[in-house]
């Protein structure tokens, strides 16, 4: 029965933010925080690099649009060129309409998938759920988790530091 880390519950976002900042100043790196809604800036404090999600979305959009436009071009120019209403084979104005829709679709799908991928979801079983005090669903509680794998992690010491930072409860989390 190995140890995943210790989790501390705080009363409100501000407390959590301060605790997180403090622990980071103490040199802890492998931390995570949990809240019923986004606590602005918390991720940065915990040392999250600037997210690359926008690039994924952009790439998805480009891919969608270009692929579909290419498909259209192939169909009307190469595979089955046919005189439709005396219009030119390459009638770009209508084609761009469809390409635009495809771009949006590609971007949205890419964004969604990238978000799950980067967040490692779905992850149905996670150690944090083992914490008795982790009642995320109840709302109103804000948690800070220090992983046992953190080099600076010392069982008693870390728990003490969290308590001093005003944690309502501090609990060890089994892996």
């Amino acid at each position, binding site marked *: 029965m190995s140890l995943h880390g210790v989790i501390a519950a705080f009363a409100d976002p501000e407390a959590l933010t301060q605790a997180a900042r403090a622990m980071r100043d103490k040199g802890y790196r492998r931390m995570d925080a949990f809240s019923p809604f986004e606590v602005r800036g918390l991720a940065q404090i915990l040392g999250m690099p600037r997210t690359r999600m926008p690039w994924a979305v952009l790439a998805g959009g480009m891919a969608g649009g270009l692929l579909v436009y290419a498909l259209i071009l192939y169909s009307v120019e190469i595979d*089955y060129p*046919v005189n439709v209403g005396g219009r030119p084979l390459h009638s770009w104005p209508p084609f761009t309409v469809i390409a635009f829709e495809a771009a949006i679709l590609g971007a949205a799908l890419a964004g969604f998938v990238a978000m799950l991928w980067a967040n490692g979801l*779905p*992850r*149905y*079983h*996670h150690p944090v*759920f*083992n914490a*008795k*005090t*982790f*009642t*995320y*669903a*109840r709302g109103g509680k804000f948690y800070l988790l220090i992983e046992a794998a953190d080099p600076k992690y010392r069982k008693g010491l870390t728990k003490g530091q969290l308590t001093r930072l005003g944690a309502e409860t501090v609990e060890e989390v089994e892996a």
Partner: protein
Amino acid sequence: MQIGEGMPQVFSSNANGIARFVLWGLCFFAIFAAIGGTALLRSGFITGVGRPVAQAVPFSHKHHVGDIGLDCRYCHNGVETSASAGLPATEVCMTCHSQLFTGADMLAPVRASLASGQPLQWQRVNSVPDFVYFNHSIHIAKGVACETCHGDVDGMPLMQRAHSLSMEWCLGCHRDPGPNLRPPRDVFLLHWKPPQDIDEIRRSLISVLDIHPETMTDCYVCHR
């Protein structure tokens, strides 16, 4: 601790693995289904290519064409003049079989047909939908050989489809007829060996026979 009182560890530790497996599985299944479906449409299961069709009279093109060497037109006499190549009337069969194999059991239906006047019933092998108007005479006239579409019938004990006869397949030739052309005098030959200068010949055929591929993909060429 009872359900609903926190304790959010709902799933066992192998749930993650299962989830991953299911997700990847779905992706691969989708891809496989797409590729498989595309292939299936063109396979013999759908097109019936290479599947001999049972007939009331097990007529063998292998025997009559391959061994004896009958000309296609002996039986399919409309092929040069009409849209339909035509099937031989019973009396055509009997021109020979009144002398040969007169007692053969497999020919009983033929004799019966002649006697009773009830026509023979064949299962159609090379059929196209009824909204497709195929004309044999023009193909013959423009140097498209029998074997180009019907294959090596002299090797078929029972008639079978040599090609899918799908629109895709038809258009393949209608867009670029060149590779399937031969001098019209040779269209009834089987296993025809192209001469050395075949490309030259085909180029000249296109102009001599006044073939305009750009007009051969018009809808009404086949659909009216």
